[in-house]
């Protein structure tokens, strides 16, 4: 079957059913997935590039009258495909809890304060080298009702498009050394330890701005078309 984008790398993904994450029990398909070839419908995709975003959209600390409370952070990285090619002019969307571990979302009823100066949503488009950058505050851990005394490790949600319907990715970025990793069924749903660790950003002094903010690097790898070389431009 024609698979323009090799499927081998997908074993990094979690299975649909991970019973420790209770919601997967009634929301994961039981029937086998139907393998389909990659047709025009899968090989094309929307482009929401630089023209879709405003430069201020990537600074989550400047969306209100004052500055949000919390530890100011810079999160930067590069989006490439599996073959190391930069994914250019691609939309990256992020959302997160505030420093106290509370989301603006109306359903979140965690007994922690909202911050009038923090919404927690941002977006940007990657540049010609696949680079992106956000300014934010470090999100707090928060409780959820999956099991007794369940707490999510601090994380930032990421949504990426890439260059086709097949490269779409929604994931979460975690922070180094979080003591909650071992107890979090969502993080632990990824069977391969190395793949799991790719969701943990790295503290970098080079990205850190003196007297201002800590810098974390989070590189993201989307599906690639295999190692066939492309002329510049034909991939984007």
């Amino acid at each position, binding site marked *: 079957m024609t698979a323009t984008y090799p*499927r081998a790398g997908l074993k990094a993904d*979690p*299975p*649909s059913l991970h019973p420790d*994450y209770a*919601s*997967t*029990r*009634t*929301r*994961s*398909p*039981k*029937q086998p997935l*139907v393998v389909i*070839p*990659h*047709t*025009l*419908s899968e*090989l*094309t995709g*929307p*482009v*929401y590039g*630089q*023209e879709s975003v405003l430069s201020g959209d990537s600074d989550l600390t400047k969306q209100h009258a004052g500055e949000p409370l919390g530890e100011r952070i810079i999160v930067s990285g*590069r989006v*490439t495909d*599996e*073959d*190391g090619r930069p994914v250019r002019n691609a939309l990256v*969307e*992020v*959302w997160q809890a505030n420093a106290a571990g509370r*989301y603006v979302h109306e*359903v*979140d009823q965690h007994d922690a304060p909202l911050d009038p100066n923090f919404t927690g*949503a941002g977006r940007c488009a990657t540049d010609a080298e696949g680079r992106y950058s956000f300014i934010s505050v470090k999100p707090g851990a928060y409780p959820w009702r999956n099991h007794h005394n369940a707490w999510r490790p601090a994380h930032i*949600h990421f*949504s990426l498009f890439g*260059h*086709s*319907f*097949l490269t*779409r*990715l*929604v*994931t*979460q970025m975690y922070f180094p050394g979080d003591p909650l990793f071992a107890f979090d069924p969502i993080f632990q749903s990824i069977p391969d330890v*190395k*793949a799991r660790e*790719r*969701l943990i950003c790295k503290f970098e002094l080079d990205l850190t701005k003196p007297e201002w903010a800590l810098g974390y690097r989070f590189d993201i*790898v989307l599906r690639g078309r295999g*190692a*066939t*070389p492309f002329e510049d*431009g034909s991939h*984007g």
Partner: protein
Amino acid sequence: MAERKSRKAPAAKKAKPKARARAAVAKRPAPKRAGAKKAMSRKAVAPAARGLTPSQTVGPYFAYALTPAKYRLKPIIADDLVTPDAEGERIRIEGRVLDADGKPVSDALIEIWQADGKGRYPAAGSARSNAAFKGFGRAASNGDGRYAFATVKPGPVPGPNRTMQAPHVSVSVLARGVLKRLHTRIYFDGEPGNARDPILALVPASRRATLIAKRAEATGAMPCYVLDIRLQGSGETVFFAS
């Protein structure tokens, strides 16, 4: 660079000539091009096989970022795909997202990707203005699990081996409890091309109906196609490995 090693190993093991050739290509340094110099001087980044970033659930709290009509952020992707230049019959597509117990999934994110009425996708890489047909839409399900899009009915698009694919919409389903995006399609009842569609042909006949939206009795100005998405259990929607 342990991950590089681990990815190379399986390619070598299979020892297919094509795979070996690909591996060799992957090792070659990046072709020189305008603008590359600046990046290389900062940090040498040669193309090399990399492990995919794994998927995680979208969780229950995406709305204020991804479907933020109710919130402060201006939405750039919405549930209305109709633009002034969109060619094709104006239609609505709607349905409910249901779990294994038939309960509504009230926190799902549904995304659709489709061609226009003439079967044309925007050219690869074209960053169209928001006034031009994008072919992409996004909707959050409501308390009843209901999602809805306003769009145009897509035309047939080319399939593999000179076949034609019947009009269809590609669909991503994301939600709390969905660890990786579910990929499905919406076809349209009564389309003569459905019988010859190369993708429907791969689906067991008994399950095809889970992909075909039924035309509802016209209640408003626009024709409406209805399809429920069942994540598990009786009448489970067909999802694809792609």
